[in-house]
């Protein structure tokens, strides 16, 4: 589910003003002294790209990343090998004692967001009014502190304290990995909090605006929102969210063949164990193959099978979820290269148990005609990597409900009773933009990021129940050191 624009900034803003600000930022960027970039004889969310590795191994970002943060197969292989190059110089004992495996990332930005049918009820009169709400201004992203590396040969770690732009920190990732067990690359074990082994990684997403994320990784049917209509699902799950558990994985030497199987606490990566006495499972497999000068192609499949509580029970000592019901997400993906042009494609089938789908505690009777919601989703993301310093990004994503949890009655959505149409909650999302890296080095990374995204969801306008459209324009200076 996408995020809402802050309602604290209710003000209509002419497009002209927005364009002026954009123009100013672009001009400022063009005035940057980028002589180091011209020396290169090449024609000219949240991200895991770790310059500390570049500093450790003396490699430019472009060695591991198609364009950071998107990994190429060499970077994937490095990650699969437990952040080791395998040259017998990976353990920290071989590093200068002063070497510190820490990187920081943040994105000062200007962004403009707009939603066409927001609830802009006049507090003075109390008259419900639906209208366009636009916010814009200079802002900060959250900050990631990325620490990763090897503790000893074949024992590696990743620790990512991450803060929102309010500087409240949480552990995005914290895990230890034992690699090459039994001297085989086919047996590795990771324990802690980590990103699911998604080859299309949300942590390495190439789009940054609020509405430019992968909808597919976080979608839950609109009928799962709280009965008061607030847009917070009763249970939360996102395949893009980092999860806590243990993962067994393996890969061929060149990472062309990969598998992983994870056992996860069923609490969507939250720390502590409330709601977490159930366990989820995630399985994935992929195979890459060479296609001559076109590049490396990869196809794979994944399945997440989980359970979530339908109600919470509390006492003075413990809080826990009960009435666990199942849900699943499963699908296929492909990474297709045509030299500089590449496509990432994904298809996902999702389904929730009827109790989850209607937000009904398992001890309560189900609404009349209720059934488990199912949906199909997919996207195609295109990149054109002009050179390691410039990449164009585009993605079209759609989600289609194939079975609604509640009976269809034309009209406005009535939580727990009915939905207005068969396509209620369907999503269409389009995002395009570019990233320009004025220099490439093995010390730090910097990108000028410009992006536009638009998301339309069927029938979820808060008052009228009409379609809701959000759009976002984003200009950011994305730096990592």
């Amino acid at each position, binding site marked *: 589910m996408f995020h809402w624009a802050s309602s604290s900034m209710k003000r209509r803003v002419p497009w002209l003003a927005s364009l002026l600000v954009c123009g100013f930022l672009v001009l400022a960027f063009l005035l940057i002294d980028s002589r180091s970039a011209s020396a*290169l004889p090449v024609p000219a969310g949240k991200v895991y790209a770790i310059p500390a590795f570049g500093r450790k191994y003396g490699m430019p970002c472009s060695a591991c990343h198609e364009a950071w943060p998107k990994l190429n197969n060499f970077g994937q292989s490095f990650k699969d090998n437990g952040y080791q190059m395998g040259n017998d110089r990976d353990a920290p004992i071989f590093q200068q004692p002063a070497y510190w495996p820490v990187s920081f990332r943040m994105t000062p930005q200007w962004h403009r967001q707009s939603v066409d049918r927001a609830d802009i009820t006049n507090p003075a009169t109390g008259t419900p009014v639906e209208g366009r709400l636009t916010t814009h201004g200079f802002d900060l992203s959250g900050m990631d502190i990325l620490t990763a590396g090897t503790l000893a040969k074949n024992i590696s770690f990743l620790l990512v304290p991450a803060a929102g732009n309010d500087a409240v920190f949480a552990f995005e990732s914290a895990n230890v990995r034992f690699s090459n067990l039994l001297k085989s690359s086919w047996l590795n074990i990771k324990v802690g909090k980590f990103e699911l082994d998604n080859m299309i990684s949300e942590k390495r997403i190439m789009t940054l605006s609020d509405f430019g994320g992968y909808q597919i990784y976080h979608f839950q049917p609109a009928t799962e929102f709280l009965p008061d209509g607030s847009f917070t699902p009763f249970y939360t799950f996102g395949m893009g969210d980092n999860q806590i558990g243990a993962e067994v994985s393996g890969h061929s030497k060149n990472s062309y063949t990969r598998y992983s199987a994870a056992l996860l606490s069923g609490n969507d990566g939250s720390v502590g164990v409330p709601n977490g006495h159930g366990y989820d499972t995630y399985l994935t497999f992929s195979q890459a193959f060479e296609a001559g000068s076109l590049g490396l192609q990869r196809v794979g499949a994944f399945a997440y099978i989980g359970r979530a509580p339908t109600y919470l029970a509390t006492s003075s000592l413990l809080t826990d979820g009960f009435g666990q019901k199942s849900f699943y997400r499963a699908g296929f993906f492909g990474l297709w290269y045509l030299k500089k042009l590449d496509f990432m494609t994904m298809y996902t089938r999702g389904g929730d148990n009827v109790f989850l789908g209607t937000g009904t505690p398992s001890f309560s009777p189900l609404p009349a005609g209720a059934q488990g919601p199912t949906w199909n989703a997919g996207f195609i993301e295109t990149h054109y990597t002009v050179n390691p310093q410039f990449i164009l990004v585009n993605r079209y994503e759609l989600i289609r409900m194939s079975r609604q949890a509640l009976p269809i009655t034309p009209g406005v959505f009535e939580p727990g009773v009915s939905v207005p149409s068969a396509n209620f909650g369907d999503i269409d999302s389009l995002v395009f933009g570019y990233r320009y890296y004025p220099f490439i080095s093995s010390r730090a990374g910097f990108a000028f990021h410009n992006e536009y995204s638009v998301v339309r969801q069927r029938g979820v306008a808060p008052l009228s129940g009409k379609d809701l459209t959000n759009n976002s324009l984003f200009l950011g200076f994305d730096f990592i050191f």
Partner: protein
Amino acid sequence: MRANKSMQWMFLAAALLALPSLAIAQQGEIHVGKVTGHSDAGKQLYFRFCWGCHGFRGDGNGENGPYLNILPRNFVAATFKCRSTPTGTLPTDEDLYDSVGRGFTNSNMPAWISLTKQQRADMVAFIKTFSPRWKTDKPGDPINVPAEPAATLDGIKHGKELFTKLECWKCHGPEGRGDGPSASTLTDSNEQPIRPYNFAEGSHFKCGTTNHDLYKIFMTGLDGTPMPSFADVIKPEDAWDLVHYLRTLQVNHKSPELALWMGTKEGAEFVKAQKVGGTPTGSGIKQ
């Protein structure tokens, strides 16, 4: 008739004009098995993956060069360690291709095996554009590696004698730990200090992992390092005995030669003494 002749002349002229361009096109190509590498594609890959160490001009003066204890290869000098060709000659395309895929243990050069065969071949094609030597010299003929005889105790003992006689120990140390009396004085062609190979440490050699690779190393030498070629010094059968003995120095790497050697009192005591060490450092090597 006249028209026909004109056509013939035009065809000939066109062919003559086309020849140089054909030659230019082929100049940037290499062939490894069924894969043809192209230097223009390799150039883009080089400036993605390699320039940080090997430099924009391929001279090994990348921005990371000063921080590496083994300097990156200078492609302009066109002196290469790992070859199947005699010392002093250029390597074959396959030699370079294998080096890119294998990487160099104990250095910052990783194994680029996760790149496609095409990409590695393209890289090699571009690497060969840095030195004019590739235009004037041809790669040497790969040396002949005779079939490997089965390892025997006598052969291993003979190899040990050769290790002493050829003074390998002066650099590699009497126990193969890279700590011979000359070790601290050695420099490479960049006049940088260089450490002889420590057999006790690992399973990888600089130029491969197999007995065949080890045979090639001391019959071709590692150009650009103090490791000479012994091709003119020892016979092939002696060379195999030396290979089998060197395997017994790799006490942390299981091999048939080591198993054979450990069956003797001398061998068992040697291995036991080698494995006595201090606290593990996390390097993967028991000190």
